[in-house]
């Protein structure tokens, strides 16, 4: 059975468990999703399920997207994402709801991290920066040496340095599900998930359990 959903980050808060301990919770508006396409090893070379999320105005989608959804008489859906699943046990047009997850499950959540813009090495890669005292000037957050001397005489490709940070795909692994509300399509996981509020998230069964 496929354990995967597309959701939207609502925000964070804290709730109390039975023992009265406050636990940090991220709320996710998850689903209802629809199976828009099933990938099979015969046809596509791998097995996966394509899910769609968020109903949209038809004019927001292209004709190709609308036609793709119309095959299974599905409403216009804004986000389509694929989930790998050996035996999905689903056919095209089926709805997928939060009830695929239960309290206590471990999930991986994939999102797009908040953009930080162009950042230096200290923030981006936790470089130590230079000494703060002993007559230093302009060296406090400098990256230091980037390469060797005459040989090789250049900076190796892929070396860490200042540059654009954030706005990339990030996976948070092994988050515990603490809340499932089928009626309001709400999912609560313990801890933080990547991205801003309102960001699109993929929720999958945890790979490393």
């Amino acid at each position, binding site marked *: 059975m496929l354990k995967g959903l597309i959701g939207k980050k*609502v*925000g*964070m*808060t*804290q*709730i*109390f468990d039975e*023992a*009265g301990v*406050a636990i940090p*919770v991220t*709320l996710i*508006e998850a689903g209802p999703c629809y199976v828009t396409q099933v990938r099979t090893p015969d046809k596509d070379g791998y097995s996966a399920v394509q899910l769609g999320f968020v109903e949209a105005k038809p004019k927001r989608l292209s004709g190709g997207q609308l036609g793709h959804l119309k095959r299974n008489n599905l409403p216009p859906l804004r986000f389509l994402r694929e989930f790998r699943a050996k035996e999905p046990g689903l056919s095209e047009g089926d709805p997928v709801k939060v009830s695929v997850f239960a309290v206590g499950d471990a999930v991986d959540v994939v999102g797009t991290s908040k953009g930080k813009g162009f950042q230096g090495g200290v923030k981006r890669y936790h470089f130590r920066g230079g000494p703060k005292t002993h007559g230093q000037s302009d060296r406090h957050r400098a990256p230091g040496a980037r390469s060797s001397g005459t040989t090789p005489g250049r900076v190796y490709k892929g070396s860490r340095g200042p540059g654009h940070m954030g706005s990339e795909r990030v996976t948070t692994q092994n988050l515990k599900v603490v*809340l499932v*509300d089928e009626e*309001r399509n*709400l999912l*609560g996981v313990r801890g933080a998930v990547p991205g801003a*509020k*309102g960001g699109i998230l993929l929720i999958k069964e945890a790979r490393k359990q």
Partner: protein
Amino acid sequence: MSNQELLKSVEAPDNPNIPELSPGDTVKVFLRIKEGNNERIQEFRGTIIRMRSGGNNGNFTVRRVASNGIGVERTFLLRSPRIEKVQVERHSKVRRAQLYYLRDRTGKSARLKQKFS
């Protein structure tokens, strides 16, 4: 529902057994303590030296001087289900919101003037 409303709906409600508290109050906090399968109530009596608002995360700190003049401070979440109830025994006249100066004082100088309402 908006995001804020969704978040509010899963948060714990206000505890009706906690009256309005303010810094300087002498209070008795009744805590539910679980020991194995038994539940008992423990009291913690002291002076509120700090109130922190913040809805779901609001808390307050109670200071009491235990034996040998050792100060003990405990912070309680206002919406924690572990708090059975809070009793206010005395209001005090205080001129600041955080009474950290009580930490440096002992004996007579650590007293607060009572406020009658």
